[in-house]
């Protein structure tokens, strides 16, 4: 295998050191690396080296909605975004609620070879919220599922949620909840507040998220289980998670790039590219989510990359699908919202986009420190670059980025997956043996 010397990068945005990559691992760092024999040099002066990013929240849409995305196209987008590992959400068709389906997704991910794909298992059969799926079988399968979620739907029944939390303890699983009280959000279209009142769009109130999070942290505390709160979006949710952590409850929480950056004011033009669930909230909520991410109340950034075919967005607001793509913009948005504002360091970015997500997902060979002997899952980002996002230029098969036309900071220059470059000079590196 090729031996690669990456020169001049600032590791986690701190000290400059050369890094030697050999046999899928970091073989040397610093003077030893510089002096070592190598086949290829990747010059990285001025770039920041991060551990390969890990997403706990990716909708790859295959099987079932290959018109929106495939594992092939979605994982290529992930590599371009600096990811080396994604967790594929369970709301496929068929649903990822059996060992057979999760193993299929896992294999397709391996065959494509762009990132490590870890399927998320459904909590309930068919995401219907009534009967537990075979969590144990999915955990024991080749896919080794550890994260379970009905994402897109809330596990609303408190008894089902309690059982799922308890049952997952047997294999160190975690329940990742899409927190949305269904009755309070019937036919909801956007955040309920000043803008929805004016636009005449049915509101999705903050309380519908907060009520479920409050219930779930109490349930998790009661049965002593792990809970992961997906795409937390309101100031009140941040407070509840902060409170729960102070009580010692084993809860982790996720924020999405869009909830760190965009507000409900964008809905005023009725462009469904801004339609997402949970919805874009107010500027005060964005500020609270940023503060929560900076102070550690929120543990991870997950993309909630949700591709949709054009016809599902090229229509009136009410008819449009919920969701935004995000794999290829996540790091730039986090840089803009958190790093360039002075609220987080690059080491903090590594924590929320790699170390902690891998730890939550119990992924042993991802989200590791940049140290000798560790797997060479690495990302090089140029923080000084600026780019205008163009939907058509992205690798995802869908166009529904909310950042189209916006200038964002930062660019992923290179990504290494177990020592092999998947991206160099900002472009995908095609590899032999890749199977669609």
């Amino acid at each position: 295998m090729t031996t690669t010397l990456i020169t001049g990068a600032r590791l986690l945005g701190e000290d400059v050191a050369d890094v030697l990559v050999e046999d899928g691992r970091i073989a040397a760092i610093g003077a030893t690396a510089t002096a070592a024999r190598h086949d290829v040099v990747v010059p990285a002066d001025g770039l920041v080296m991060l551990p390969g990013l890990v997403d706990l929240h990716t909708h790859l849409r295959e099987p079932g909605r290959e018109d929106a995305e495939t594992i092939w196209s979605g994982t290529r987008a992930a590599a371009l975004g600096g990811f080396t590992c994604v967790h594929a959400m369970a709301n496929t068709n068929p649903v990822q609620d059996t060992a057979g389906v999760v193993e299929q997704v896992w294999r397709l991910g391996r065959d494509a070879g762009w990132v490590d794909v870890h399927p998320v298992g459904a909590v309930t059969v068919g995401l219907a919220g009534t009967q537990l799926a075979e969590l144990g079988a999915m955990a024991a399968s080749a896919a080794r599922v550890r994260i379970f979620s009905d994402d897109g739907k809330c596990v609303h029944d408190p008894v089902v949620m309690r059982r799922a939390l308890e049952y997952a303890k047997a294999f160190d699983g975690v329940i990742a909840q899409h927190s949305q009280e269904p009755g309070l959000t019937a036919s909801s279209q956007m955040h309920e507040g000043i803008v929805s009142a004016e636009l005449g769009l049915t509101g999705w109130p903050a309380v519908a998220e907060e009520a479920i999070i409050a219930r779930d942290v109490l349930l998790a505390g009661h049965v002593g289980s792990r809970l992961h709160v997906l795409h937390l979006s309101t100031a009140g949710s941040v407070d509840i998670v902060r409170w729960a952590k102070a009580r010692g409850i084993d809860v982790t929480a996720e924020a999405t790039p869009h909830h760190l950056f965009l507000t409900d004011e964008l809905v005023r033009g009725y462009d469904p590219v801004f339609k997402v669930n949970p919805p874009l909230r107010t500027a005060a909520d964005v500020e609270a989510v940023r503060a929560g991410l900076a102070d550690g109340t929120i543990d991870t950034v997950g993309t909630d990359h949700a591709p949709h075919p054009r016809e599902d967005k090229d229509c009136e607001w009410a008819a449009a699908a919920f969701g935004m793509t995000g794999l290829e913009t996540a790091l730039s948005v986090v840089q803009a919202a958190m790093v360039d504002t002075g609220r987080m360091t690059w080491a903090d970015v590594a924590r929320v986009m790699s170390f902690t997500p891998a730890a939550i997902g119990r992924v042993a060979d991802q989200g590791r420190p940049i140290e000798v002997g560790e797997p060479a899952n690495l990302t090089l980002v140029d923080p000084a670059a600026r780019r205008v996002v163009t939907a058509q230029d992205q690798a995802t098969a869908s166009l529904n980025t909310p950042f189209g036309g916006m200038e964002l900071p930062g660019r992923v220059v290179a990504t290494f997956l177990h020592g092999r470059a998947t991206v160099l000079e900002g472009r995908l590196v095609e590899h032999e043996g890749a199977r669609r």
Partner: protein
Amino acid sequence: MRHLLSTGDLSREQAVTILDTAAAMAATQAREIKKLPTLRGRTVVNLFFEDSTRTRISFETAAKRLSADVINFSAKGSSVSKGESLKDTAQTLQAMGADAVVIRHHASGAPHRLAASRWTDGAVVNAGDGTHQHPTQALLDAYTLRRHLIGLHGGADPTGRDLDGLRVAIVGDVLHSRVARSNVQLLHTLGAQVTLVAPPTLLPVGVESWTADVSYHLDEVLAQGPDAVMMLRVQRERMGGGGFFPSPWEYTRGYGLDARRLAQLPEHTIVMHPGPMNRGLEISADAADSPRSVVVEQVANGVAVRMAVLYLVLSGQDQTAGDLVAGQIGAHA
């Protein structure tokens, strides 16, 4: 005025221009021959994704009195009901050469999408979108208010005037009402003071940011002697299990306009309703048929206001043409 999507987009000057133009149009309608050659050769499409015979007929009459060609495109019995998208429909109309598209849609914001998307080059006139806006209804309400209440004591010609100082109560299902949203914005722009009256469940979260006062008590508001009381339609489906109010009787007791409440109002106060009325629910027959009621006149004024709007969007003018005011409306190429 390129499109008419929301009353929130109108300046005071633009709104007054529309009202003055409507007055000029109304003057021509008193003649024996009502038809004007103004929009000859232009095509107006009525694109109705939601049933509303009243509004469609009003727009159709307005367009025909201006000699425009009218195409009615309704969801019932057309490809729209077979799942054709707004986009495809709009492009079909574009191919037919629509100069203006009058759109009624159940989805809030659909007219904005049509105007912003370039699916059609035509002027877009919002004829009611979801629970968002119904700008021509608000304009005809403003026109009716101005005709009855401005220059009230001097009998002066209201042309050029706004609604400065008028106090208007809007009563009922504000939450689901595009008429309320359009009126709150327009009447405020024109200088009127609006008070919304409804049970708290029928007011949207966020209403505190609107340019209107809010009350839960109709009798208190009526006691202040408003110049006009606008009753909103309340749909019977809004009650029942987990509904917005406990029963129709409780609603009527609290928020219905009946003979007793009517008698409390100052003599000059007018009663309005956008129709269709639920007699016995939000308005009693006594109130609906009283001499104070201008409900029938609202319908007639609707044609004049829609003539004005079609004229202004299709002539690309923002000001009342002098010839219009003089009642000699010529053809615009």
